[in-house]
């Protein structure tokens, strides 16, 4: 974003200075929750509500997720299992949950 600075002559804008603005890409103003990935893979997920792209770098990695995307995330699970009671194993756990 650029900012124009007025000169002594109010009738003319002559100088343009760049202005650095730091933006937190995932700071949507909504509360977020940390999710930890339980699968041994690199995972890219697009938030179902916000459209934010989240990336986990492997099992145990933690990412802040906008709370609006949490319900859909928590439904993500391996649903077909060959052992262990055929219980769907979730992709994510809530950190501290």
């Amino acid at each position, binding site marked *: 974003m650029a900012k124009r600075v007025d000169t002594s002559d109010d009738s003319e804008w002559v100088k343009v200075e760049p202005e650095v603005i730091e933006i937190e890409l995932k700071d949507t103003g909504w509360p977020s929750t940390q999710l930890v990935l339980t*699968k*041994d*893979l*690199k*995972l890219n997920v697009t938030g179902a509500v916000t459209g934010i792209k989240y990336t986990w770098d492997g099992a*145990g990695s933690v990412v802040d997720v906008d709370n609006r995307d949490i319900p859909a995330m928590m439904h993500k699970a391996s649903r*077909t*299992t*060959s*052992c262990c009671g055929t219980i769907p194993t979730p992709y994510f756990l809530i950190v501290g949950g």
Partner: protein
Amino acid sequence: MSSLITGTPIGNLDTQEDIYLEGAPTIFVQDYSATPLFHPDADGYYWNMSGTVAYPVLELGCLTAVSLTENIVMNDVLCDNVGVKATVQQRNFVELQLTLQSFFPLQNLRTVLKGSVVTETAPTQKFGFGSINNAQFWMVYAPKVYDEDYGDYIWFHFHKCQYINAFTINMPFGSPWQVTGVTLRAFADTTKPAAQRFGMMGRADASVIV
């Protein structure tokens, strides 16, 4: 007199039970960086697994042709005057060989095929065949329940394994695909006691072991 009739030796005898094992165990694999569930147990044994978020336990699914073997070096003590008086043996490694018929999910299969880490972006999963990571070791735990009613089971646990050998994927018509040549070689783990350096075997049977 009974010993004469049956040929049974006299004295202290330890006979075997009429319990037989059949079928393959379930095989679980976990990164060697994880610690076993029992680390160690009250008897000093290291075994079983506890999946963590960082080190999930991976199950190898539909298996066939499972066998366990070992490699040892043997050298006879040959005395030129009397012949072989003994054979010196040392264990080199233990090997679990199997054929895998479950291919999914790919994050499990890629470990068997020594592929790269899986990247998942819905609806796809991908991994590469590149150079093999020789620094990757796995724990292997293979329990087999032989009495479902009473929950009696045996298990093998190997501390430090690698997938070795070249895989072959058979793709027959009318039969399930198979990954053959899957070999988990258990190496000596010098962080474990010498008596269980490669691994251990156990049995849990509350009706017999009391």
